[in-house]
């Protein structure tokens, strides 16, 4: 959290910022928290903790700047520092996904996909959602931030504390992993994904 901006807001200003700039993002915050924790109670706690921290550190928020990105950054850090540790499931690296990535022939943008547009269009919300949820948390996060919440690469870089180039490559890898999942669903649905 930036310590540079040390404003002194009055109580009235604090309440105004909290009500008008912070609270309107509660839906997105809860959705993000739920997709990180997969647990309603954990998601509620995470959102609540985030808002309490936001209020406590409200003087380091510069009014008029991107409150949503600021809040998401706090939530992401709280998740990493607290929830991941005490999570009911021990945090584990998804070796399968790591392997899929490292063993693929091309890790750059020239990786072609035989997944068809129509197959993706026909998928149900549950299938898309499950495919997203099956990704390792770092990959899942960039897709949520970019595609569900519409953050720019620059905002994502700030939220995640990583360079923009890393945002770009992680997003690309995440989408390739997602396509692998969708491809296997498509095969189960009877789409012939091998056909050119």
């Amino acid at each position, binding site marked *: 959290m930036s310590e540079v901006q040390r404003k002194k807001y009055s109580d009235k200003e604090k309440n105004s910022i909290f009500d008008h700039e912070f609270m309107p993002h509660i839906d997105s915050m809860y*959705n993000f928290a739920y997709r990180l924790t997969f647990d309603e109670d954990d998601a509620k706690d995470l959102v609540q903790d985030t808002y309490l921290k936001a209020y406590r550190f409200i003087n380091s928020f510069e009014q008029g700047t991107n409150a949503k990105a600021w809040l998401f950054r706090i939530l992401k850090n709280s998740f990493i520092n607290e929830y991941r540790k005490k999570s009911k499931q021990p945090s584990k690296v998804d070796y399968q996904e790591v392997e899929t990535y490292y063993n693929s022939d091309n890790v750059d943008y020239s990786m072609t996909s035989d997944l068809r547009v129509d197959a993706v269009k026909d*998928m149900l919300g549950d299938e898309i959602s499950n495919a997203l949820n099956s990704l390792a948390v770092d990959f899942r996060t960039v897709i949520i931030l970019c595609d569900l919440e519409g953050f720019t690469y620059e905002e994502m870089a700030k939220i995640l504390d990583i360079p923009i180039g890393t945002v770009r490559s992680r997003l690309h890898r995440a*989408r390739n992993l997602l396509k692998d999942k969708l491809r296997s669903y498509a095969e189960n649905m009877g789409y012939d994904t091998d056909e050119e």
Partner: protein
Amino acid sequence: MDKNLNTSSERKLNCSDESKCFELLESILDGEETTASKEILDEKLAKCQPCFEHYHLEKVIREVLKNKCTKHMVPAELADTIRQKIQEIK
């Protein structure tokens, strides 16, 4: 079904620089590429089959993610609980 798929015979079947093209296409879809003009995009899609396919697949994936990953309903009491806790720490 995309009607443009019928005109695929006019497109070249191999892209000479897939890696660079795909990166550009993905940036455009993410709203990051503001300098690339619409003409460049249109030309790529009109002339190159791999670019055309990649663009439309990436586009539909973004669309389904946005539209089909349902938002989880925020528990009704959460906002009130937060406001209450804030009052306590004030």
